[in-house]
């Protein structure tokens, strides 16, 4: 019966499908793909306003980047940000989502509270944390001194490792709610009967988490992981406002900004931003593929 209805309508379906996808194609094509192609094209020329002419240089902008030790250091810094931020966001976000899912009273309010950091515009977020990390009047020093954990005020950004961690914490603080929302939505779609059945079978909480929860929220987890990775690769505001262009904490996107807008080596900056895009694409692709492969149990 159902087959009879589905098959003859393919032509009509295709037209409807195209009509509904048209706005998507138009907006994304015009405002993202066209500019992107234009940037790809530009990155093959030497576009440096301080030098006359814009000669074609092929891939030299890219090969110059590979040789640049500052750029390589920025890649390493960004990799550290990604690992720290993704771990904090995913572990913390999953814990928060599970907690919210178990909560029967006041879940709505707790969720609103959890989402609060994400409501803050990044600009405001960074100002708040700059003030918290302030070496002279900051809350962090004040609390740690008060608790007796440290005995002199610390200059947090003097130490590279501390600086990277603190910047990652600010980033994770802001981005975690996104992970929580995505995972909570996924958790809500798991039928309660499954847990009931598992409990009757004598499964422990940890077993239920591993055998039921994680596989069933895997698509949500893939979205959450990909978005947190992509956002961490593109980390800019937090590091820029908290520690400026300091080499210790300079992410790749800060390097793009410094190259293109500060040093006016525009095409070099564009080439680096293209590489950044390729890297975050590749990393999220790996997540998505792995998560889908591991959970293809049907």
């Amino acid at each position, binding site marked *: 019966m159902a087959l009879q209805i589905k098959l003859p309508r393919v032509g009509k379906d295709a037209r409807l499908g195209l009509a509904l996808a048209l706005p998507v194609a138009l*907006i994304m094509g015009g405002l993202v793909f066209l500019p992107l192609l234009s940037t790809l094209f530009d990155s093959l020329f030497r576009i440096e306003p301080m030098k006359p002419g814009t000669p074609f240089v092929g891939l030299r902008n890219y090969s110059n980047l590979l040789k640049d030790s500052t750029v390589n250091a920025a890649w390493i810094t960004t990799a550290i940000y990604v690992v720290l931020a993704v771990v904090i966001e995913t572990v913390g976000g999953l814990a928060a989502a599970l907690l919210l899912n178990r909560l029967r009273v006041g879940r709505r309010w707790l969720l609103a509270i959890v989402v609060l950091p994400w409501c803050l515009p990044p600009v405001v977020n960074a100002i708040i944390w700059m003030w918290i990390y302030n070496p002279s009047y900051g809350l962090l020093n004040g609390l740690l001194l008060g608790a007796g954990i440290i005995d002199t005020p610390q200059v947090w950004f003097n130490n590279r490792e501390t600086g990277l961690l603190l910047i990652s914490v600010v980033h994770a603080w802001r981005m975690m709610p996104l992970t929580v*929302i995505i995972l909570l939505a996924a958790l809500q779609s798991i039928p309660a009967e499954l847990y009931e059945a598992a409990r009757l079978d004598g499964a422990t909480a940890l077993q239920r988490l591993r055998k039921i929860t994680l596989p069933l929220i895997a698509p949500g987890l893939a979205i959450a992981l990909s*978005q947190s990775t992509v956002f961490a690769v593109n980390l800019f505001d937090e590091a820029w406002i908290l520690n400026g262009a300091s080499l210790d904490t300079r992410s790749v996107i800060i390097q793009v900004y410094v190259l293109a807008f500060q040093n006016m080596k525009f095409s070099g900056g564009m080439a680096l931003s293209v590489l950044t895009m390729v890297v975050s694409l590749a990393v999220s692709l790996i997540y998505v593929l792995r998560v889908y492969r591991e959970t293809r149990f049907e």
Partner: protein
Amino acid sequence: MTRRFKHLPGQIGLWLGVALLVLWSVGPVYWSFVTSITPPNALVSNSLHLWPEAATWQHYAKLFGANSTSQGNEVASVWPQFSRAFANSLITSLAATALVVIIAAFGAWAFVRLQFPGRDVLFVLVVATLAIPAYTVMIPLYRLMISLGLIDTYTGVTLIYVSAFLPLALWLMRSVYQAMPLSLEEAAWLDGASKLRAFVQVVLPLAGPGLVACGILTFLSAWGQFMVPLVFSPTLATKPLTVLIPEFVTRNYVDYGLMNAAGIVAIAPPLLLVMFLNRYLVSGLMAGAGK
């Protein structure tokens, strides 16, 4: 071992977790609030006060008052700019949210349920744009917006927001539709409804919570945007709060109090939205799937 006895540690752990989560989420915002009601010269005092010794509303007065003082001079308050920027933020964020939700609601369904040429390629390409840094497309986009005459218009900024936040919404909505059994729609087809009609009447209402989630994500992302409006909204005609707030850094003086006050006000609309729409978010998905 009785059930109740076994659950007690769990309950304690649960509420400990809740307390921790609240502290982590609210702590910094609370501190920002405290900063916003601390007088400027007390901000640089030696001792730490979790509540200011002499609370002041002077920073808020500067935002909302008719006039205020700066460097000993009577100066115009920032209220005309602030209120305008606030409205601009609201308008562009809401417009982007509405467009994203509508386009994603229909588009994602088409990607899931309809066969059409180029479907999978388009979907993969669109989702892949999530990985594009804003700087990559900034300058060509600027050229494009100039030629379309869309610089400093709500339309221009809104369209850019839509292009930036549509991919995540499409992805999210696709997984929502995928999780729904096809039988729901098939029943409507048997009743003679067209595919589109079956979708609008049967599927769409059930997808409400997913749409609300998309809406919240888009609104919050748009509300916090900085780089896009910085370049595309040069004047107060469309300039949002996020671009206005850093201007409170005057040349010789970083007004932490004023910036924190502005930040606190800037959190309000998204927070209200989340509190109001949370109900849909939480109750929705289960109810929809159950029936």
